[in-house]
């Protein structure tokens, strides 16, 4: 494993290219909109752009790595936090918390804040999907997607219900946030917290890369090779839930990043998870920040179009393209 898992020259070139891409889109994001100038105003503009850049990088990386982890553990390249209802679960947790705040209720979740509410929502949805999609202890790939779709729909309905109960002002903010919007009002403290969490989770995921490779085979094979699947599942599901909750906290639910990035990077680097996690994190970061640059440059929606909407426009057709081999296979998928 150790001998065959090392990066080849080609792998290193791909990783360097992805790193360069992240750098280019990051500089572009700081630059777009023109020179910010010197002095107080210039510093404020730079700070705002840096905050949005940091959010974009963090959200993109966390969603892409969350998708990579779920795909490995569920042995399904179509798994992603968005499709499995994990993102909507986190969103539901946060909206419920906001609603508690609005009605003046002081519950335990409210006291702990949006962060904990998002984590509880994400983990609950993930747990439900995981338990319901098992058949005799093994995960049924199509069943998994169907359960994910249903959990997503139930979360969506609950979000609409809370939305209906909320006052008009709050409802407008919630609707924008639900589209996947990098909100500069989030603040540095939350960004730093989520960024640290994301970096820690990525390091842990890289460390677990070899184990995740083994876990993509059947339970019996993984067990025979000396993997403690139960412990790995617990750890990796927790990481995926935390990453998704963190991204939702910063930007609301954004779809398709967790699905598309691991898929594209797998085509470039192969399926080894040590490299895949690093590559996906960079691809996710570049994709979100790149989309933000396009929104600002093209002045779509006066440069304020939610990045989640753009991702859905790109991601929907791409998902259908990826789903093609699975269609028509019925129960064999």
């Amino acid at each position, binding site marked *: *494993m*150790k*001998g*065959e*898992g090392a990066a080849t020259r080609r792998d290193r070139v791909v990783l360097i290219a992805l790193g360069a891409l992240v750098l280019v889109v990051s500089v572009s994001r700081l630059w777009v909109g023109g020179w910010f100038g010197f002095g107080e105003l210039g510093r404020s503009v730079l700070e705002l752009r840096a905050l949005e850049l940091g959010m974009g990088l963090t959200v993109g990386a966390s969603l892409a790595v969350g998708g990579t982890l779920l795909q490995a553990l569920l*042995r*399904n*390249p179509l798994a992603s936090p968005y499709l499995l209802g994990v993102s909507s679960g986190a969103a539901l947790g946060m909206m419920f918390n906001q609603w508690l705040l609005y009605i003046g209720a002081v519950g335990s979740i409210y006291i702990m804040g949006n962060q904990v509410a998002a984590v509880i929502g994400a983990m609950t949805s993930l747990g439900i999907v995981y338990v319901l999609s098992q058949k*005799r202890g093994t995960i049924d790939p199509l069943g998994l997607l169907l359960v994910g779709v249903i959990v997503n729909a139930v979360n969506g309905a609950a979000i609409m219900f809370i939305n209906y109960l909320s006052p008009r002002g709050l409802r407008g903010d919630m609707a924008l946030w639900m589209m996947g919007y990098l909100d500069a009002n989030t603040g540095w403290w939350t960004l730093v917290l989520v960024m640290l969490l994301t970096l820690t989770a990525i390091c842990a995921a890289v460390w677990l890369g*070899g*184990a995740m*490779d*083994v876990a*993509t*085979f*059947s*339970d*019996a*094979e993984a*067990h*025979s*090779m*000396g*993997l*403690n699947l139960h412990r790995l599942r617990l750890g990796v599901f927790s990481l995926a839930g935390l990453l998704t909750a963190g991204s939702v906290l910063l930007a609301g639910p954004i779809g398709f990043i967790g699905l598309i990035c691991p898929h594209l990077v*797998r085509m470039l680097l*192969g*399926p*080894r998870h040590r490299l895949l996690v690093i590559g996906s994190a960079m691809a996710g970061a570049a994709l979100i920040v790149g989309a933000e640059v396009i929104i600002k440059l093209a002045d779509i929606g006066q440069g304020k179009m939610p990045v989640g909407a753009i991702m859905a426009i790109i991601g929907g057709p791409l998902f259908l393209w990826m789903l093609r081999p699975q269609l028509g296979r019925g129960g064999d998928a």
Partner: protein
Amino acid sequence: MNDAVMRLDEVSFGYHPGEPVVERITADVPSGQLTAVIGPNAAGKTTLLKLMLGTLSPTRGAISLNGKKLRSVAAGDRAAMMSYVPQRSSANFAFTVEHVVAMGRFALPWHGQAMTDVMAACDLEKLRRKPFIELSAGQQQRVLLARAMCQATGDGRVMLLDEPTSAMDLRHVHQTMDRLMRLRDAGLAVVVVMHDLNLAARYADAVWLMQEGRLVAAGSWRDVLKPAVLEPVYGVKIEEMQGRRDGGTEGRSGEPGRPVFDARLAE
């Protein structure tokens, strides 16, 4: 030579209460012996293998590996002692052949020489950079055997195989069985679930015959591979084409008198 490395003591298992799939099996798995597990469909052969592997836990009875309860053996120690070859793999991602084989050392210290040796022994050198999921079923079976052999290098004591040659051509079937015999000669306890009675007759030292979850006969090939024992279990007429009386064929170990069977539906 023939110490029991694995012991099954009154082992029972069922997926649903009151519906046993494996029932009260007691047997020893000795070192340096190839044991063929045979029986009709749904006899419980694969379930028995999974119990021996530890992925399923007996509902009654106990299994020990190297004198210790199987459940209490640490995952790394178990991987060092026991390897497994499934009938087919459920890979979903395009790992290369060499990476799949290298996974055999996941929980063990890296052993570059073992990797080189098994790639050559299993005829996989030309396929090393190919994605595993793009190989034919027979080629995949060779890769899975190579992975188990890579894992077994060093402290390997038991290798469990579930119909490892079911998708292979004739040459690779016999090459694979020959490799298993070499592992047996090196002291490994090799347990192979198989359907081909002639293959069992040619290669097995011991045979376990299963029917409806029970071990109905167990012993040397001489005692079990007889039409009188096999016919009631399989429900077909079985004839020895070349039998003990006329010398039979020579087994891989050089013993003469190994039978060759033909079967037809009973009238």
